Each structure stands twice: as C-alpha cells, then as structure tokens.
C-alpha cells in the first residue's frame, strides 16, 4: 500500500509456536494533558475498540463522567463499560480521535477494533511473512 507503515507481528511470550505471534501496534493515546504509550491488538473480529480500566485511569479519566454503553460480549461481558474518546497517534500519521469501550476489567488487552480503528485505517495483513501494513483512510 502506498504511504503505509509496516509493523512486525510481535511475539507475546518466549514460546516460538506460530500462535504466539500477534498483530500488535504501538500507539500513543492522550486525553487532555496526559498521554501514555501502549500496544494495541488489531482485532478485525472486535466490533469496538477496547480500553482496559487501568489505562483509562492513567489517562485521568473519571469513570462516572463517561457515557454508559450497552452490554459488551466476550471476556468483558460481565463488566460495565463506558464510552470514552481519546486522541491517538500512530507512527508519524496525523493524530485522530479514537473512541473506546472503557471496561472495568483489567484482564483484557487494549484492542483496536472495527469502531473506529478500522474505520480510520486501511490495514493489510501479511501473516505468512510476519508483518502488517497500515495507512490512514
């Protein structure tokens, strides 16, 4: 893809088996005057972006001030979730707004899903070659 950036699949533990490599993207998230460096899992099967509870707290978000979201599915189905908008910067692409389902669980990954990561970025996966490419829409 023209003007795209390439990222390698990342090994998630010391075991070298193929299932341990995931498309994980370094991303900078900010809100007001706070920002964090994080790693988001690109998950085309996830309807929404998902923010673990502690990352929202690190960004200074106040739980009760955020919009209540309808019930989620998967690992976080039993946890309440709120909607939160964050500024996101990936590589040297322009900063954009990403909206997240902020869950009360910390037993989850930071997930970049259909709403709205894949609305904002075109992504090509080259799993057999161990990398993926992304570019803004």
């Amino acid at each position, binding site marked *: 893809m023209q003007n795209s950036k390439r990222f390698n699949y990342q090994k998630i533990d010391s075991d070298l088996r193929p299932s341990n490599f995931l498309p994980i993207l370094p991303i900078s998230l900010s809100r007001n005057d706070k920002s964090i460096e994080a790693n988001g899992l690109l998950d085309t099967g*996830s309807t929404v972006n998902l923010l673990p509870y502690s990352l929202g707290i690190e960004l200074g978000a106040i739980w009760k001030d955020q919009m209540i979201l309808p019930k989620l599915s998967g690992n976080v189905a039993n946890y309440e979730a709120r909607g939160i908008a964050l500024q996101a910067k990936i590589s040297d692409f322009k900063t954009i707004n990403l909206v997240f389902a902020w869950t009360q669980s910390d037993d989850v990954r930071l997930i970049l899903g259909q709403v709205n990561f894949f609305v904002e970025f075109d992504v090509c996966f080259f799993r057999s070659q161990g990398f993926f490419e992304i570019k803004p829409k």
Partner: protein
Amino acid sequence: MTLTEMLPNLKQLNHREKLKAVQFLVNEIAIEESLLDNNKDYPIYSVYDSFEAGDALMKLLEQENAKLETV
C-alpha cells in the same frame, strides 16, 4: 517410516521445501499441544457482535469531531 529413514529424503529437498517442512512440523506441534490442553480455559478477547455499543461509540465520535470543528 522412521525419522532415520526420512532424513536422507529431507536432505534432498531444496531450500524453499525445507522451510515448508519446518513450518509444517511447527504447525503440527502447535496443534498437538493445543489438543493436550483441552481442559485449559482460553480467553476470548474479541468484543464480537457488540453492535449497539458500536453505534453508541460512533455517536460519541460524531460529537467529539463536531467539538473540534467548532474550535
């Protein structure tokens, strides 16, 4: 067929075929290991089919983008 019997044949493969053979064996081991872990719980990270939450987040995004336009 034993491994000892197979090794001479494997040596005759070209470089690309040898890599494919390695990939095949790694995949086989991964499958075997996951079969052995039938009793293990696997997390489902994907927030799948949460369309109402997705719609709500898109509305939130519209509001945030509108704020930026008015600044």
